[in-house]
């Protein structure tokens, strides 16, 4: 029980962090059709900006300023980069964002060095909020849950209750029609891209000191975010939310269950020994392949339900 509750909380925190990253990406992907490889780089930039800003004015202003900076970076990328590349089709866009991700990584390495920077949790939140069965639940994790929860609410309200949200939703499925109705679709694109990047930046601000702020953080976070987006389905914020939480919980719980296929087979009366064919594979325990599970699930969902969990159209 102890393990279950603690793991549930940890899974939730990680899932919500994934959601902050993935929500921006899913908006960009479903609206513009751009698989933005540089999205996780914005997450990294957010963390580094927040670190640098917090050196001068503290964590709280950084929480606001860093995502805004990331938003501007995103807007600049969209207006002066993607929009030009867009004419040459999706492959060009893909390669463009891929190159961008590498450039940002090198840039960060040159600007801040290869080593992790000491970006720490603010002193105000650096205490155990409560303790379950002797394991501390840091206040900062609760704060992360709060921020990401508020963000989910804000996006949902923004998309469903505001005029611009309605236009964005319309542009998701019928961009030409929205353009024909007199809306400035390119500007909406810029807005969505900037907002998505800002969200990733915000995730970086609160994720950078939860994990470690280092140049490899974009590289490690990138693939899993793609999995969430594909799994959740295009154009569905709810799907993205469910997928994020699911991935967070799966990765957390995979670690704590020391079972292997051999154990399952033993339950139905089949004992695996060293001589059994594929014994190596059958005896691999769940924690050892935990990191692989999300990718396995992505492959499965692409085969059996290409539009994802709640997607409205095919990937």
């Amino acid at each position, binding site marked *: 029980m102890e393990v279950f509750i603690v793991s549930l909380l940890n899974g939730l925190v990680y899932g919500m962090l994934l959601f902050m990253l993935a929500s921006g990406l899913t908006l960009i992907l479903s609206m513009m059709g751009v698989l933005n490889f540089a999205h996780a780089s914005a997450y990294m930039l957010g963390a580094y900006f927040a670190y640098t800003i917090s050196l001068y004015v503290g964590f709280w202003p950084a929480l606001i300023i860093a995502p805004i900076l990331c938003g501007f970076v995103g807007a600049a990328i969209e207006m002066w980069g993607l929009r030009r590349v867009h004419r040459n089709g999706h492959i060009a866009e893909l390669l463009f964002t891929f190159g961008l991700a590498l450039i940002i990584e090198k840039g960060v390495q040159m600007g801040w060095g*290869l080593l992790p920077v000491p970006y720490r949790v603010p002193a105000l939140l650096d205490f155990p909020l409560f303790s379950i069965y002797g394991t501390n639940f840091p206040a900062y994790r609760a704060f992360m849950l709060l921020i990401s929860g508020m963000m989910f609410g804000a996006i949902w309200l923004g998309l469903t209750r505001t005029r611009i949200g309605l236009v964005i939703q319309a542009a998701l499925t019928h961009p030409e029609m929205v353009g024909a109705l007199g809306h400035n679709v390119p500007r909406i694109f810029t807005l969505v891209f900037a907002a998505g990047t800002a969200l990733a930046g915000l995730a970086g601000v609160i994720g950078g000191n939860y994990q470690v702020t280092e140049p490899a953080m974009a590289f490690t976070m990138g693939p899993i975010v793609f999995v969430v987006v594909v799994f959740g389905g295009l154009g569905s914020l709810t799907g993205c939310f469910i997928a994020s939480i699911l991935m967070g919980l799966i990765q957390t719980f995979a670690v704590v269950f020391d079972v292997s296929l051999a154990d399952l087979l033993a339950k139905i009366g089949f004992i695996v020994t060293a001589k059994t064919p594929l014994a190596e594979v059958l005896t691999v325990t769940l924690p050892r392949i935990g990191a692989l599970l999300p990718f396995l699930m992505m492959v499965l969902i692409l085969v059996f339900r290409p539009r994802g969990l709640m997607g409205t159209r095919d990937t």
Partner: protein
Amino acid sequence: MRQSFWLRMLMGVLLALGVTVTAQAQQTIKIAYTDPLSGPFAQVGDANLKQMNYIIDHINAKGGALGKKFELVPFDNKSNPADALIALKSATDQNMPFIMQCSGSNIAAALIEAINKHNDRNPDNRIIYLNCGAVATELTNEQCSFWHFRFDLHVGMKAEVMSRAIPKDVTKVYMINQDYLFGQSVQRDVKAFLAKNRPDVTVVGDELIPLGKIKDFSPYITKIKASGAQALVTGNWGPDMNLLIKAGIDAGADLRYFTFYAHLAGGATAIGPGGDGKVLSVMSFGENVAPEIGNKEAEAFTNGFRQLHKFDFAAATFRTIFEYLQSAINKAGSVDPTKIAFAMEGLSQKDFLGYDSTMRKDDHQIISAYYVGLFKKGVKYDAEGTGLGWATTATILSKDVNQPTICKMKRPSA
């Protein structure tokens, strides 16, 4: 007629150019250095590179070897054996006498095999492999090679040191290691030496994790706590080390950490003040060793690095590698790798701290002094500006780490 004259001129110029290029190349003794300089483990390779360059400057200022200076030529291998082999190819193409590699025993194993083949086939273009930190026990036992010289204690020796360093009140440990050659080596050897030296200690959990993939170790900490372990024993390095300890400290888990690599770059930052007195590391060097034994010269040497860089000079014993090279090259009187290899095996000298060391002839494994450090407040030199640092709690002399080897060395006919 005219054409062939021009052709001959051109050939002449090219030849002359070729001669000057080789003449320039011979002015320095080049060492190819291959480690991850990008990707998740980039910080490890980068920290090594900075420390080596500092040491090389020091050695060159003392005259290098045979009047020539050492020069390090870095090649990024992205933690990938295939890329390391490309680096090896470049090094042999340019006739470099040495290749050095520190991070990743899987990469080391690939290099040893490739170098054995290369040196067999190309007797006039051989290369020596200087291993500065790939420590899987096998590499100087089952897999030992005449061309491979290891300048760090192997896992078996470190595990023995570790088994003796575990405090008496700890009887339940949990093991987490990386799922590859090195991690498996740690897993096996630590268990073997615990059984031998500390039969009262039970291993309550034993686990392998994918290399460099995990971002949040909190679930592991939950599991470790549930197992009732008092301490965690881990050979993890790089982000796998730093994130693991950080997760444990953040959860306020009542655990102690017995590590092989927590003292390397990024470790102190990840542990932070919350880890006061909780983390032990088995290490080749710590910045507080020199002041503790009152060696002023060594202290000045390490302090010089501190002025230049923001992380610890944890690998100051790389200096031993270059001092051995210096002696072996001077002894051989040439930069011919075969002669140097023969000159280096069996060499004994004092390291810069004044402790005995030997490059054991039987398996080309260095036998040198080793230290156990405790991360705590109130040390002379703190680590990475945290205010805490590594205090030496035990110094193990080279005669006490000398484990037998099963190596059957095949020597070339000189």
